[in-house]
C-alpha cells in the first residue's frame, strides 16, 4: 500500500515539478516580451500628438456603451465623467438592463431625460427594449439611455451596439471612470492601422485614489489589504500578460471594463454571447476565430496607457464571487472554442494563447491545489522528503515574488502612476506578502468555480455591491 501511495504521490510531484518549470518558463518569456513591447510603445508614444485628434474633423466619431444594472450609487457620476472626455465627436449610451433599483429614475432626473422617437434597429437579438431616452439639455445632447428588460451584461451591450450610430464603439462598465484622454489613446491604433478591429486599455484600481467630479486626481494605494493585492495582480495581468500577447497578436481578452471595437466586426460576430459569464473573453476569442477562418488580415491590440479606473472589491466575499465568475467565464470560453486548441489554422491563438489559458490560467489553480493536497497526503503517509518540499516551496515562492516584482518593474519603467516611493515600497512588499495566504485563497476560489460550474450548474453573474467612487476612494 505504502509503495502504491509513494508511487502515486511521487509521480504527481514529478508532474507538478514539470508543470511548475513550464509555467515559470512561460511567465519569464511573457515578462521579457512585455518589457520589449512596453519600451516600443513608450518610444512610439513620444511622437504622438493627441491634440490633432481633438482638433481635426477627420477624427472618427465614437459611441461609448455603458451597461448599468442596479448602479444607482455610481451611475450619475460615471455618466458625467463619460460626458466630459477629451474627444472630438462621441455619443454616450447608457443601457439600463432592467435595474430593480432607481438607476433609470436617477438618470432621468439628473440629465432631464425625455422618451425619444429615436429609431432602434434590433440587428442583434436582445431582450425587449422598453424605451429610449434623450436629454432635453443641449449640453447632454450626446447622451442616450436605452431602457430594456433584464438580460445580463452581454445582452445590454448588444442593445447598445444596436443603438450605436458610429463605426467605433467603446464598451465600458457603468461603474468605471475613464481618464480624460483614454478615448484618444485607445482609438489611435485604429487610425494607424486599418486592420485593427479591437483594442483594450488598462484597468487600474481606484480604491485609495482621490476622485473629484468623476476624475482621479491623486493616485494612491488603498489603506485596505485586498485592493493592494489586486493592484499587484492587475499589473501582472495587464502589463506583463496582455502586453506580451498583444505583441504576438494573440490577445484573447479585452477587459469588459474598457474596450474599443469596430462595430462592423461586432455585427459580423453577431455581438456578445448572451449565454456566458465571460462575455468579454468569449467575444475576443470568437473575433479571432472568425477572422482566421476567413483568412482576413486583422489585429486585436492592447494599449497600456489609456486608463480605466475601477472600484475593486474590498471584502473577501465579493472578491471570491468575482474571481469565481472570471474563472467560470474562462472555462466556458475554452469549452466553447475548444476546436481552436492546438489547431495550426488559428496561428498563435491555437498554438500558444489558448494552450496558455487552458494549462496555466484555467487548470493551473487546480494543479496547484492538488499539489498542496499531495504534499499533505505524503506528509500523513510519512513519505514526504520535507527538506525537498520546503525548498520547492521556497522556489515557488520566490518565482511568484519575481513575477510580481517584474510587473511592478514594468509599471515603474513605463507609466509610474504611483508617484510616492512609499507606494512603490508597499507594492513590492505586497508582491511578497500575497504568496502567504492571498494567493492560496484565490486558488481556492478558482477551484470552487469548477465545482460551481460542473456540479452545481451555476451560470449566473452574482452581485457586486458598489459604494460609489467618493466612498471607495476614501478607503
Amino acid at each position, binding site marked *: 500500500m505504502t509503495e502504491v501511495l509513494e508511487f502515486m504521490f511521487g509521480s504527481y510531484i514529478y508532474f507538478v515539478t514539470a508543470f511548475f518549470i513550464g509555467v515559470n518558463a512561460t511567465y519569464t518569456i511573457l515578462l521579457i516580451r512585455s518589457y520589449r513591447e512596453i519600451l516600443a510603445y513608450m518610444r512610439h508614444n513620444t511622437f504622438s500628438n493627441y491634440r490633432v485628434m481633438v482638433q*481635426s474633423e477627420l477624427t472618427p466619431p465614437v459611441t461609448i456603451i455603458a451597461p448599468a444594472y442596479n448602479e444607482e450609487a455610481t451611475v450619475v457620476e460615471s455618466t458625467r465623467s463619460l460626458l466630459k472626455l477629451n474627444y472630438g465627436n462621441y455619443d454616450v449610451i447608457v443601457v439600463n438592463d432592467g435595474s430593480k433599483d432607481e438607476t433609470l429614475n436617477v438618470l432621468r432626473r439628473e440629465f432631464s431625460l425625455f422618451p425619444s422617437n429615436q429609431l432602434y434597429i434590433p440587428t442583434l437579438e436582445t431582450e425587449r427594449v422598453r424605451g429610449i431616452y434623450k436629454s432635453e439639455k443641449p449640453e447632454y445632447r450626446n447622451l442616450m439611455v436605452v431602457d430594456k428588460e433584464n438580460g445580463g451584461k452581454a445582452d445590454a451591450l448588444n442593445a447598445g451596439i444596436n443603438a450605436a450610430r458610429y463605426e467605433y464603439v467603446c464598451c465600458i462598465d457603468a461603474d468605471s471612470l475613464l481618464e480624460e484622454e483614454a478615448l484618444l489613446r485607445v482609438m489611435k491604433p485604429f487610425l494607424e492601422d486599418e486592420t485593427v478591429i479591437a483594442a483594450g486599455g488598462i484597468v487600474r484600481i481606484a480604491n485609495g485614489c482621490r476622485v473629484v467630479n468623476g476624475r482621479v486626481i491623486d493616485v494612491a494605494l488603498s489603506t485596505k489589504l485586498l485592493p493592494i493585492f489586486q493592484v499587484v495582480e492587475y499589473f501582472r495581468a495587464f502589463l506583463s500578460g496582455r502586453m506580451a500577447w498583444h505583441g504576438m497578436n494573440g490577445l484573447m481578452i479585452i477587459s469588459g471594463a474598457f474596450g474599443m471595437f469596430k462595430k462592423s466586426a461586432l455585427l459580423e460576430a453577431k455581438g456578445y454571447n448572451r449565454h456566458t459569464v465571460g462575455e468579454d473573453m468569449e467575444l475576443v476569442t470568437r473575433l479571432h476565430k472568425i477572422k482566421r477562418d476567413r483568412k482576413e488580415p486583422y489585429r486585436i491590440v492592447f494599449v497600456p496607457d489609456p486608463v480605466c479606473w475601477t472600484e475593486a472589491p474590498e471584502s473577501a466575499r465579493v472578491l471570491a464571487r468575482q474571481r469565481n465568475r472570471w474563472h467560470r467565464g474562462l472555462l466556458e470560453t475554452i469549452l466553447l472554442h475548444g476546436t481552436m486548441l492546438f489547431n495550426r489554422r488559428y496561428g498563435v491563438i491555437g498554438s500558444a494563447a489558448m494552450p496558455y489559458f487552458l494549462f496555466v490560467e484555467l487548470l493551473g489553480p487546480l494543479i496547484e491545489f492538488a499539489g498542496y493536497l499531495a504534499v499533505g497526503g505524503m506528509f500523513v503517509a510519512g513519505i514526504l522528503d520535507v527538506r525537498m518540499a520546503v525548498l520547492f516551496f521556497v522556489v515557488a515562492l520566490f518565482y511568484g515574488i519575481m513575477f510580481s516584482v517584474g510587473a511592478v518593474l514594468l509599471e515603474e519603467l513605463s507609466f509610474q502612476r504611483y508617484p510616492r516611493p512609499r507606494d512603490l515600497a508597499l507594492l513590492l512588499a505586497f508582491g511578497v506578502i500575497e504568496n502567504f495566504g492571498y494567493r492560496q485563497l484565490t486558488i481556492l476560489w478558482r477551484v470552487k468555480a469548477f465545482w460551481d460550474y460542473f456540479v452545481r450548474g451555476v451560470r449566473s453573474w452574482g452581485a457586486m455591491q458598489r459604494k460609489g467612487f467618493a466612498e471607495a476612494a476614501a478607503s
Partner: protein
Amino acid sequence: MSVELIIVAALAVGATFFVVVVATGLLINKVAEARRSKKRERLYQFYSGLFADLLLQPVLEGEDGETVRKQYESLLTEVKSGLAWSPPAQKLLHRQAIGSVLIDFSSDLSGESMDRLQYFFESFGFVQDEVALLKSRKWWLRAQAARDLGLLHAMSATERLTSLLEDSHPDVRNQAMQSLVKLLGVDSLRPILRKARNISRWTSLELSMIVKNFEEQAYPYLIEALSYPDQSVVLFAIEMLSETGFVAAVEPLMNVAESYPNIVVRAKATEALGRLGDQRAETLLHRLLKNPYPSLRASATRALERIGSPSSVPILSERMQTGPLAERLSAARALARSGERGMVRLRVAGEETDQTMRAIALHVLEEIEGVGA
C-alpha cells in the same frame, strides 16, 4: 546533496537574486530619479535665464553676416569654456539642458532672435549631431532628430528630411513631414503628397492640421494631388478640399465623382460635393442616386442632405420609400433639409400607417425639432 536539490536551490537563488536586485534597484532609482529630475530642472532654469539674456543682448545692426556671427559667438564664449572644463557626465547633462532650452525657445521666436538661436544651436554642434542621428538604425533616434531639426529651422537639413519622407517607419516619416512644413511652408506639400504612400488615418489627421493652417494656399497642391497615383493621397486631397470649403474645387471633384476608376474614391468625392454645398453638383447627384453601387447611392443621398435643395424633394421622397434602412434614413434627413416642401413631406410620412416609414420620419423630425416632435 542530490542533483535535484542543487537544481532547486540554484533556481531559488536565481529568483531571489532577481527579486532583491530589481526591488533594490527600483527603490534606489525612484529616489535617484527624483534627485536627477530636480537637478535637470535647476539646470533648465539656469540656462533659460542665461539664454534669455543672451538673446536680448544688443548686436551691431547692418553689419555683414560674418561680423554678426562673430558677435553671436562671443556671446557663447563663457558658456562654452564652462562646458569645456566639465567632466563628461556633467557636460552631457548641461548640453541636454541647453538643447532643451534652445528647442523650447524656438517655438516663440522669430526674426533676428530666431537667427541668433539657430546660430547657437549650430555653434554648440547640435545640428551636426542631429543630422548624424538621421542615419541611425534606431527609428526613434531618427524621428527625434527629424523633429528637432524642424523645431530649430535647420534649413541645411531640408534635403535629408525630404529623403526621410520615404523612411520605413511611419513616426520618422511623420516627424520629417512636420519639420519640412516648418522649414518650407506651403511648398512642402508637394514633396509630402507626392512621396506619400498608403497614408494612414493618423497621418491624415496630422496632415489635415497642416493643410488647414495654410488655408487657400494649399488649394493648388490638393488639386494636383487628385491626379497622384496613390489612392490614399487622392482620398486625403478630396477630404481636405471639402473640409476647407474650396468652392473652386467643385468642378475637379465632379470629374472624380463621375469618372475615377475606383468606387471608394468616387463615393468620397460625391460626399465632398455635398459638403461644399454647391448646387452645380445637384444634377450629378440626382443621377448618382440611381447608380447600381449602393455606396455611391448612399454618398449621393448624404450629399443632397448637405445641399438641401427643394428640387431634390421628389427624388428623395422616392428614395425614402424603399431600399436599405440606412439609405432611407439618409433620404429622410436630406428631405428635412430641403426646405418647407421637404418638411411637409416628412410630417406626412410621420403619420403613415407603414411602421418603418413612420419611425424614420419621427426619428428625423425629433433630430430637427427636438423634444416632442
